[in-house]
């Protein structure tokens, strides 16, 4: 079971968008993963980036900041190891 996290400091459109795209991909492709949105700057600090949102898969940073990548790219990011 993968753990996918979308981390940001404030709830904004871009974080919401990334969360929705990831959730849709996970559901439609039957990827065994748990998707979680964390809005907490104290959590963000751990990943040493000021840019938001951050896409983390199993503790590894896969994408940082805007613009949000295309859904196809996001799928690659969350499925590759």
């Amino acid at each position, binding site marked *: 079971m993968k753990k996918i996290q979308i981390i940001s400091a404030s709830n904004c459109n871009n974080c919401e968008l990334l969360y929705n795209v990831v959730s849709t991909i996970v559901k439609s492709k039957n990827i065994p993963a748990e998707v979680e949105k964390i809005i907490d*700057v104290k959590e963000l600090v751990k990943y040493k980036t000021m*840019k938001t949102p951050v896409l983390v898969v199993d503790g590894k940073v896969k994408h940082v900041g805007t*613009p949000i990548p295309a859904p196809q790219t996001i799928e690659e990011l969350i499925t590759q190891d």
Partner: protein
Amino acid sequence: MFEIYDSIATYITKDILNLNPSDKLYEVAHFFIYDTLKIFTLLTLIIFAVSFIRSYFPLEKTRKILSKHKAIAIPLAAILGIFTPFCSCSAVPMFIGFVEAGIPLGAAFAFLVSSPMVNEVALGLLFASFGFKIALAYVVFGVAVAIISGFFIEKLNPRHLIEDYVFELSFGEAEEKPMTFKERIEFAKNNVKDILRKISIYIIVAIGIGSFIHGYVPEEAIKSIMNSAGFLSVPLAVIIGVPLYSNSAGILPVIQALIDKGVPIGTALAFMMATTALSFPEFVILKQIMKPKLIAIFAGIVSVSIIIAGYLFNIIFGRV
């Protein structure tokens, strides 16, 4: 440069829609098609170009530059704001990161004003509607507003109005791997898609309303309104613009139509600055790190600076 669009617009209105060129409706439809083509072409080009340049200045790099030049941090932050991509939801981490690096608070605020204000959409729309000179003037005035706002906030030294945890968290030094040329192109392309997806509908509706004003609203009507409210049009534009989210900058084509009918151009500029620099959603985000009093002070200083910039602009460009 845009003759081809003129021909396309003429072809569609005359040959496909069968409208009579002496009709008002012909004029409105022609204007709408021509303006839509022109604005979207220029917007695409400018968003792409600005995004490409911005790929060279990630927030981390800007922070590093500012932390090395603390004495001139306020004007430098205002200028770097033009080149650094920034979304208001990153305001909190940006603030914490800047404070951590010892960058003066005034510089963090100057950045917070100029980065969203001098953005690719505003530049694209201003360039499409009013040309290079006005777009450039917008950049210069935008930076000036950011410097003045940063300077005043630095003088106030609002440390006590900022939440304590801002001074306790630490991002450390992030290892930033440089992008390849291909990645930069990809970044710029994605940004074009992302922004157009968000604002196209606003712009098309605005061009529609603008075309209607262009064709049907008599110049005398606007002139008589401006004669009675003329001097107040700048603060009015700012008051309307502040609460609006930056996507609303897409309504610039409406303002352009009003300007063609006699509204002074500084009013348009002040409106653009107010919508992009300040917004309610941003205030909500800032509330996480600062007391409402500081947000009010910040909004006040920025608004007054924008109003002054609007007046100066009207004086310089001739119409008050």
